[in-house]
């Protein structure tokens, strides 16, 4: 599964002169988590990467400042904070009952996928202690496009879990 997702990504780049209107398949985002096995002493940490199509972000956040139908790197960078606010509001993690885990954004890049440019949001999920189960809730874009899907992959050592997040399947419990 990891290979499949990786195959969709052409290369990471910081330059883009891409049109807002890109490939026309339905909306997908790619969420991948990797449990940090070297960090078990104190906090429990999961590293995340979340690729969200710029055209979808443009539809809700109006990133194309000069309205020329193209997104420049400058325009995306200008809205970086708004993109993070919007995205992270639709993703939540909690650990053992009553213990919310915190999302800490680390950086934001641009990824070119086969169907256009994506914002790649990197973050850590930090829980105070290793939970038995990590509870994930996802509702990106569902209110404006119920056909949006979050293609989810989690790596925990040698174990790989996958799921497709949708309005009907917006919560997953991950056994750590």
């Amino acid at each position, binding site marked *: 599964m990891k290979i499949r997702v990786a*195959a969709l990504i052409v290369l990471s780049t910081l330059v883009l002169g891409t049109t807002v209107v890109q*490939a026309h398949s339905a909306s997908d985002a790619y969420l991948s988590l990797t449990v940090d096995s070297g960090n078990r002493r104190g906090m429990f940490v999961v590293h995340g990467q979340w690729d969200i199509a710029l055209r979808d972000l443009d539809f809700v956040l109006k990133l194309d400042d000069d309205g020329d139908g193209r997104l420049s790197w400058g325009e995306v960078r200008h809205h970086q904070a708004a993109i993070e606010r919007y995205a992270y509001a639709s993703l939540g993690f909690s650990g053992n009952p009553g213990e919310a885990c915190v999302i800490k954004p680390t950086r934001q890049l641009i990824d070119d996928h*086969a*169907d256009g440019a994506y914002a790649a949001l990197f973050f850590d999920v930090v829980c105070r202690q290793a939970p038995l189960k990590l509870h994930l809730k996802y509702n990106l874009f569902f209110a404006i*496009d119920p056909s949006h899907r979050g293609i989810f992959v989690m790596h925990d050592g040698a174990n790989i879990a996958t799921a497709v997040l949708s309005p009907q399947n917006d919560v997953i419990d991950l056994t750590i």
Partner: protein
Amino acid sequence: MSEMKALRAKLDATPQSLPAAIHLAGAYVDYGRQVGDAHYAGYAEAVVAPWMGQARPPTSVLVTQATILQYRHQFSDARALLQKTLSLDRNNAQAWLTLATLDMVQGDYPSAGKDCSQVTANAGLELGLACSANLRSYTGQARQSLAMLHQAEAAGDTVPASYQAWVQGLMAESAERLGDWPLAETHYLSALKLLPRDNFLLVAYADFLLERARPKEVLTLLADHAQSDTAFLRLALAQSALHSEQVGRYTWIMAARFEALTLRGSDFFGREQARFALELQHDPQAALDMARRNWQVQREPWDTRLLLEAAAAAGQPQAANEALDFLQKAKLEDPIVEPLARRLRAQLNAPSGEIK
């Protein structure tokens, strides 16, 4: 685009207004279909979602939702909503027309005939004519189909461009059934003159050009439409026909786009995926598997043709049995499908080992 913005503003100002929601959702669906962009079906779905969530959604919402599902090839769910609509409102013209299209796509021609009569009764002669003519092109009556479409064509500018383009596109299709290539091309070009950016027409004309060994023209025709997955496949096929060094790149990108669809669990492009496997990945077995799966839900002439081609390429004529029976019943006349079917029948009837 600007029409959609205006309709969006109207709905935002009056979020409770059902007519405003139906108009906006309809504009999204039309636009998405025209440019071949699946996102708009999702936006439309979100617009009607508050009404779909009600215990008894209004019929206009049921029909809109059915159109969205049909566009996504969720045919049985779409059918259920259309039947529900018609049980509430027997004279709902849009529901009958959508059901007719659905029955034609799925190859249920007797039901489509009944649906088209209902379209005539409830929506008027123009739509009824186009509906019945479309059906006749699938059932070995392409000449009659053309005659009916000539009548429909006579309405001229008194009807919307989208209707005129639909009629021209159907005439092109009927002419193809008869193997009258110059006539087909004339009608494709008239249709595209009316709707130059229509993804469905562009792709159908590109298939016509590929068939006529004119791949270079496909590159020009679709140069600005690479975003659409269906158009992109035709670009890749044209590159392949030209033995261009770009083939590898196109094949790779197409594979990645289909992979993304598979990841989200969509069978949306069964026909395209089968054709991709057959013609660009040269994997007849994979093509046959996909063509068979696709044929269980979609039975337009192209779907049947692909199943026959894949069965022949994989050396498994028996896999085409059901499709051959279907063709016999439907009496489809088509200068490409017929010889293919004859060849497969000969293989099936030959004592084993005689024909390879």
